[in-house]
């Protein structure tokens, strides 16, 4: 996948804006003041989970070797190619829930009518026109980011290198004494 959602856990304040934005972007009207009275209610595809004093927004990781695709008996779960998001074809889905059980992150859900499964589509409609996924765009602290994986890794490397350098410098002062 070219781009992926990464979360900087320290920045997440658990405001759940991403949850609201997710439900909203998957609503019929896509307008908050309208969506709140839609029926069935718009459904969110990600959840902010508490983890000690931190909180982490959890959604589909779009695994490269996706177990949900493997177990789906009707091939309702699919992807257009390598690096593409894992999608669900609601017409094919029989609601057997194999994918729910096999997902290691527990981020696949049942639709409100119970007839199919609902999952993150990585906001395909938005990313097609160059926009970030709705959850990322809604994050007020920038804890969620939609980044090129190679760029994210490079940034992580640079950060680790800076830390190592700082530690070394500190230690050398100690040794110098």
């Amino acid at each position, binding site marked *: 996948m070219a781009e992926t959602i990464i979360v900087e856990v320290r920045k997440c304040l658990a*405001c*759940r*804006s991403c*949850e*609201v*934005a997710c*439900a*909203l972007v998957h609503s019929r009207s896509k307008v*908050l*003041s309208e*969506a*709140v*009275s839609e029926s069935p*209610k*718009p*459904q*969110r595809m990600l*959840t902010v989970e508490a983890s000690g004093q931190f909180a982490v927004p959890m959604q589909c990781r779009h695994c490269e070797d996706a177990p949900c695709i493997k177990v789906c008996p009707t091939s309702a779960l699919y992807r257009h190619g390598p690096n593409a998001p894992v999608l669900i074809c609601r017409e094919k889905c029989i609601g057997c829930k194999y994918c729910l059980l096999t997902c290691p992150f527990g981020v696949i859900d049942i639709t409100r009518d119970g007839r199919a499964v609902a999952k993150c589509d990585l906001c395909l409609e938005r990313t097609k026109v160059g926009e970030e996924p709705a959850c990322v*765009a*809604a*994050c*007020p602290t920038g804890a969620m980011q939609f980044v090129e994986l190679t760029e994210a890794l490079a940034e992580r490397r640079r950060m680790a290198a800076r830390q190592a350098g700082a530690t070394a410098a500190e230690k050398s002062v100690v040794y110098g004494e």
Partner: protein
Amino acid sequence: MDPTKRSSDKAAQDIISHMGRLGQENAWDRLDRQQPQCGFGRLGVCCRICTMGPCRVDPFGDGPQVGVCGADVDTIVARNFLRAVAAGTSAHSDHARSVAEVFVAAAKGHAPDYGIKDPAKLKKLADELGVETENRTSAEIALEVGQIALSEFGKSEGEQLMTRRAPAPRRAIWRKRGVTPRAIDREVVEALHRSTMGVDQDYGSLLTHASRTALADGWGGAMLASELQDILFGAPTPGRGDVNLGVLKSDEVNIIVHGHEPILSEMVVAAAEDPELLARAKRTGAKGINVAGICCTANELMSRHGVPIAGNFLCQELAIATGAVEMMAVDVQCVMQGLAQIASCYHTKLFTTTAKSRIPGVEHVPMSEGTAMKTAKELVGRAVENYKNRGPVNIPPSKETAVIGFTNESIKYMLGGKFRASYRPLNDNIMNGRIRGLAAIVGCSNPKVELDYTHTTLARELIRRDVLVLTTGCATIACGKQALLNPREALELAGSGLREVCEAVGIAPVLACGSCVDNTRMLVAGSEIVAEGGLGEDLSDLPLAGACLESISEKALAIGQYFVASGVLVVFSKELFPYLGSEKVREYLFAGIEEDFGGRWAVESDPVRAAEIMLAHIERKRDALGINERRERKLYSMEERRVLEVS
């Protein structure tokens, strides 16, 4: 962002672009930085009242549906609504209290710079309040009236005295629903008590108290503010003035007064005419001293003195960014802290003047009633001194002529003259359908909405359909900027029936009725229109609707709620009504409340569709009154005449 998306007014567009080029920040930029804004807050489903929280309810049903205390979404939204109404009521009423204090001080002779400018109105109010007026001086009467007014805030028993002005059926409805307001402070305190953790947890009961709290504003604090201000500073009479940033002068000392209470601004206007200060201004090279207003202060000053209006709420930063403002003096409400930042980019001296309202980094010059004129002269002096520090100026040329200053009294005077002042001609023309009904367009300017666009579009749509429009607050200034308060231009846009009446009487189709506390003038006018006869027995019978489509303030919500509880349909913008998260609250405010009070809320962001909602309501009321039916013209014989019953 494109300045034409931010403002429908050319002058504001010019200054927004100018600020953009210089990298200076304004409210629109800060709004952009605040994006995205929290969906829980926008729906009113978060609660920060106790420290078991903060809690929020998932509006789409997947997450938690109740707070830690068990409060459901209906309770949470209703509590937020009630607290906002209480805050709005506090703002108007604390403003009223300041005026009442000056009023009493003036009566006692402790405020030599203030006096009774309108003894006729004082006598009328004294009669209403049961104050003896025979063989007493104005000061004696004013003292007793002022003391009664002050006691309205904290009296331990009894109802708000001004509610007596409402039609009897209206008062009966309030009594039946248990919402006749008691002391103003009491309703606000009770609102905070009910909505704290673990007290009132029934959305219906919370919203009913919101009505009572709001009525303590509309028929209490705010109404007293208008009355006492009229007596202290003179009741407004319609007069001409200029509106928009173009009123700033390139060759004079420009002073802006901004805020709400006329206590400060009246003195500044008087001080600016001081010959010694004028001479000093001339010595510094200026041709004179030009005072202009912003926000409700502007409405107060133009309606009493014809002082020009520089702009509405969102123009406060823009005015300073013209580089032409030597001094801005502010008092209370709608004063952005951002002013301090923009003033630091220019030579403009910014002063706070009341103990209730301070801003870090801004010089505070306390205004007290005993030494008001001395302080005002000091402020004007500082402005004159500052003229020499002025850099390049960029004043947009736009300004429009407006007629402002309509009151209950002056509208009746326009309709019937000095000896036959009456609403009769208005009632007759509503009954015969030349005028379909009345609409109030009130309130703020919000950077989420293109500046002035919705107020003015709504006004145009309504007058085109023969609805007489009354405006107050920042909506008035929006109408002024777009020539809707200029009778000659606005009449071209009015429907033929409305136009005919306006031309015969000599008024504009959009009547500027003052500041936001002056919305109470409309309640009084409505009650007198009912009393005039032919249009039902209660305010809720009138073909009347109100709208505030650019609201920002809790004050707007309090105003909306007191109009609704007085029997009027009120339309707010859907995106600016942060209480939509509860289905039951929506159902009550948009429908159920009409059974209780005859008025209701509606939400609509599009001004043309909002006009449709208001017109449908007006026509429904007309149908109910039976004035939409065509009547055959009947020629009565003498016999038939004798048996006619005269009511």
